[in-house]
C-alpha cells in the first residue's frame, strides 16, 4: 500500500527552552538525528502524543536551519499541557509539512518587509524572519514590530535582542501592554503602536497574533494607507487530518490546512468571517 500521510513518524525532543511562563520551544529531530522533513516558512506539522491527541503547530525554525526543527508552543489545552511536561529525550510523533507557507520565493522576494506579531503570534513569523535574514540578498529591509502582555511574555526575547536587533538591515520595535519595572521600551497595545510608528507604506506586511489584535491593527493600517492585498496573515483552526479531508477547518470554500494557513487579507475579505 502507498505511503499514508496520516500515519506519523517518530520525532525526538532534543532540547526544551522555557521562553515565557506559558511558552516553551521544543527542538525536534527524527530517530536518525536528522530533520524529519523539509518545509517552507509558514508551513505546519501535526505533532502528537499517542493517547493524548494530535494538533497542528507552525514550524518556528527556518528551513535554513539544516539540523533540526523548532516549535514554540503555548500551554493552553490538553495536548499542549502534556507537551509542556515533557523532558529532553521524550519521543513524540510528527507528520507534515502541511499548508501553503508564506510566498518567500514569489510575492515576498525583493520586497521590504514588515512583520507585526503579538504574543505567541511571533512563532510562525520567526520562521520567515530567520529565513529572510539568512537570505538577505533576496529581500529588502526588515522591520519587526512585536508586542506582548509583559516583558516576560515576549517569545524568543534572547534571540530578538542578541541577533535580530544587532542585524544590519533589521529594525526591531518592541512594546508591552502595561508598564513594568526594568522595561524602558514602549508601553501600549500593538494597533496604536503601529499607528504611531507609521511604517513605510511600500512594505509587504506579515501579521500574526490574537484575532482581536489583528482586527484592530489591520483597521489602523488601512487608515495609514496600507492595502489589504499587501498584508499576509496565517490562520489557525481545529484540524484533524491536515490535508483537507476531515472537513472542519474551512473558512467558506477554503481549508486552512491545505489552502492556507497563509492568506492575504484581500482573499479573506471574500470569505465568511468564521475564524
Amino acid at each position: 500500500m502507498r505511503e499514508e500521510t496520516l500515519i506519523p513518524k517518530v520525532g525526538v525532543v532534543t532540547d526544551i527552552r522555557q521562553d515565557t511562563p506559558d511558552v516553551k520551544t521544543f527542538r525536534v529531530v527524527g530517530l536518525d538525528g536528522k530533520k524529519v522533513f523539509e518545509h517552507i516558512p509558514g508551513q505546519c506539522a501535526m505533532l502528537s502524543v499517542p493517547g493524548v491527541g494530535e494538533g497542528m503547530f507552525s514550524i518556528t525554525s527556518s528551513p535554513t536551519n539544516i539540523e533540526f526543527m523548532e516549535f514554540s508552543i503555548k500551554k493552553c489545552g490538553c495536548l499542549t499541557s502534556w507537551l509542556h511536561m515533557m523532558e529532553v529525550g521524550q519521543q513524540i510523533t510528527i507528520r507534515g509539512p502541511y499548508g501553503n507557507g508564506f510566498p518567500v520565493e514569489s510575492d515576498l522576494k525583493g520586497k521590504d518587509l514588515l512583520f507585526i506579531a503579538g504574543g505567541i503570534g511571533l512563532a510562525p513569523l520567526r520562521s520567515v524572519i530567520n529565513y529572510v535574514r539568512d537570505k538577505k540578498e533576496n529581500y529588502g529591509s526588515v522591520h519587526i514590530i512585536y508586542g506582548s502582555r509583559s516583558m516576560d511574555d515576549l517569545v524568543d526575547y534572547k534571540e530578538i535582542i542578541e541577533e535580530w536587533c544587532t542585524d544590519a538591515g533589521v529594525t526591531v520595535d518592541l512594546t508591552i501592554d502595561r508598564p513594568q519595572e526594568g522595561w524602558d521600551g514602549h508601553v501600549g497595545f500593538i494597533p496604536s503602536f503601529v499607528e504611531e510608528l507609521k511604517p513605510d507604506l511600500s512594505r509587504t506586511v506579515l501579521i500574526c497574533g490574537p484575532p482581536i489584535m489583528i482586527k484592530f491593527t489591520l483597521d489602523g493600517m488601512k487608515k495609514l494607507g496600507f492595502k489589504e492585498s499587501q498584508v499576509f496573515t496565517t490562520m489557525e483552526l481545529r484540524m484533524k487530518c491536515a490535508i483537507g479531508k476531515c472537513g472542519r477547518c474551512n473558512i467558506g470554500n477554503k481549508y486552512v490546512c491545505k489552502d492556507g494557513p497563509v492568506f492575504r487579507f484581500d482573499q479573506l475579505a471574500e470569505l465568511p468571517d468564521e475564524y
Partner: protein
Amino acid sequence: MKKISLDKMNELFAAIAASQTLYLPVDDGKKGAKFDAWKEGAVYSTAANTSRSAKDFFFPQVEDMASFKVEGKEIEVIDTREETEDFVVFGVRACDAKSFEILDSVYLADPVDSYYENRRQHGLIMTMACNKPTDTCFCSAFGIDAANPAGDISCWMTDSELLLEACTEKGEALLNALSMLEDADASAADDTKAAIKSILGKLPLANLSPDGMKQKSLMEFFGSDKWAELSESCLGCGTCTFVCPTCQCYDIRDYDTGHGVMRYRCWDSCMYSDFTLCAHGNTRTTQLQRFRQRFMHKLVYYPDNNNGVFGCVGCGRCMRSCPISMNIVKVMKALEG
C-alpha cells in the same frame, strides 16, 4: 447486455459469493432495508433504498488507522493497514453510486487517502435501477438518472428477468465469469427504463432544480437572513450527516487498548458543537452557524471547488430521518427565493 431469470437470482448470488463477499440489501425487520453479507437463503430486498447509505463500504463509521507502542519515553508506530479482500456490493441505487464520485473527489485527491483507496480498488459496485422511487427522491435535480444507474455493472429488474450491463472493465470481467448468464438484446431494458422515467416524472420533487443555487455569490448565500428561521428548530442531533451518503467529515481519536494505543477515525458531524472547538475558543458557537455550514458545504462550497457539482445526490434519507422535518430541499427553496 446479459440476463438471468428472477427465480435463478440465488444461483447468481451464490456464484458471485463463491469467490468474494457479496453484500446486498435485505429486509432489516424495521420496514426498511440494510446491506448484509449474502448467505444461503438470504432474500434480496427490493425496497426503494437502504436506511443507511452505501458509504460504509468505503468509508466505514469507525476504522483503525495505526497503533502505537509506548514504553517510557519511546514510541513505536505500527502500520496496521491490511489489503482489503475483494468484495461486491449488489443493489446500490443511482444516488448512492453518484455519492462515490463525490467521496472520490475528496479522498482520492492528492494526498490520496490510502484507507479509502484500498476499499475502492477492491470493491465492485452493481447498481440497480429504481423500479420504485419514492416521494422523498430527488436525484434527478442533480442530473442523476435513476433508470440508468452507474457503477461497474448496471442492473434492471423486469417482471421476469434480471438484466445486467457492464460499465467498466472490472464489471465486464465479472459478468464474463458468470456462466449462468445468458445474452440479452441491447434493448431488453428499454421498457423498464421507460416505466421508471414515467414514475420519476410524477414524483412530488420531480421539478426541483438547484440552478438557483448558482445565481448568487457565496457571501450572499452565507449572509442570507433565512438561516435563522431554517435552523431555529435544529436539535443538532447529527442524524442527517450520519445517513448522508456524501457527508465525509471525520474525527481522529486515540484509544488505550491496555497494551498500546490505537488511533482510529470515525464519522463526525459539523452539526456538533465540539466539531470546531479549539483550546482557545470555537469558531461556530451557535447552531445557526453549524446548520449553515452543513448546507453551505453541500450547496455552495463543494460546487465552488468541484466544477459546479453539488454535494447532494437527492437520496432523501435526511428528509426521512430528521426528527424536526428539516431537510436540504427546504433549505434550497428558501435560499433561492
